[in-house]
């Protein structure tokens, strides 16, 4: 999308975030890049461990639809995506 490419041009995404990226639809699924591992997994909470921080995804009927080489797709109803306090590395 043009908007995204414009934003990313200004920010050096790979250096700043080291490949980490979160795309999600409120009350829908989400797509996450740069996931190192899964810290916690349940239908209500999924803790994603990135290189720079941990991200907590909460919602209903959450499940990992696909996980491969850092790319992760979450299915279910995502209510919130937040960086866990104190998890910055």
């Amino acid at each position, binding site marked *: 999308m043009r908007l995204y490419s414009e934003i990313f041009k200004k920010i050096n995404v790979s250096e700043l975030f080291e490949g980490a990226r979160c795309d999600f639809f409120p009350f829908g699924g989400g797509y996450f890049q740069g996931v*190192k*591992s*899964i*810290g*916690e*997994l*349940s*239908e209500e909470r999924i803790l994603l461990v990135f290189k720079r921080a941990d991200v907590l995804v909460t919602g209903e009927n959450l*499940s*990992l*639809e*696909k*996980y*491969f*080489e*850092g790319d992760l797709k979450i299915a279910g109803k995502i209510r919130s995506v937040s960086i866990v306090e104190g998890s910055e590395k």
Partner: protein
Amino acid sequence: MRERRLVRLLVQGISPERLLLKIRRLRIPIYNVKKVSATKLLLSVKTKDEKKVLALENSVYKIAAVYKDERLKNLLKRTGLWIGIACFLALTLLSGSFCLSVNVVGAEGLEHEIKEVLTEEKVKPFSRFPKDTNRLSARILGVDGVAFCSVKRLGTTLLIEVVTSPFQKAKQESGDMKAEVFGELTELCVLSGTSQKKIGEKVSAGETLVCGYVIAGETKTEVFVRAFARIRVRVQITVRAQSPAVAFAKACFEEFGGFLPSEEIEEKSVQETTDGYLVTIVYTAVQSMNF
């Protein structure tokens, strides 16, 4: 897009989601991960990666394949396969009741009659097998000359085996026996029927010699006449000819269409008259009915 074949695995252990990291390090894609309980995790991997994931099993994590769900689900999705199975079953069920060929064996000289019977019974290639083979067999046995008949079903072929009788039964004539010529009845042998004439009586052409019935008491029964008769015929013809021999020959051709065998002629004479020659031939005509 080709649908991937996945196998469902159950991981049991403390914090089973930690195993996901190990699987990730093996560069194996994971699908449909769901935590069933605190110590159980369900995930799917491609069939080709199953062994690699199962090899990660250790004292902490137990990994087992759960085959049932995925395979059954995949099988049910294969619409073409189910349509093929249904078509195959339908064809198998239907083909068994249809006759693809009719083979008649041993019916030398009776093919036409047997074919008529089969047509009347509606037995032909690509028709249904006859429900009552005994009835068909009985009908074929009714054909003159057939001594034995067997109707068998061999797969999709109807095999009809026929054995003909070496002595074919002649068709019997019904009705009365009538004289074919005018003359004197010299012999009459009646095996079946009622004679109407006596030996020595004069008979005319078309006159009844033997009737096709018998009377026993007050009962009259129709029968096939079986009889044999000899009639002495005296023929006199006047012909114009150059000589008696020619006159005789002309008379024979006029009366019989040719010469009679000499043993049948009892008397012959040729007399010259004013109109030509008077040829007289006396012979015996033999006729029979169902004899």
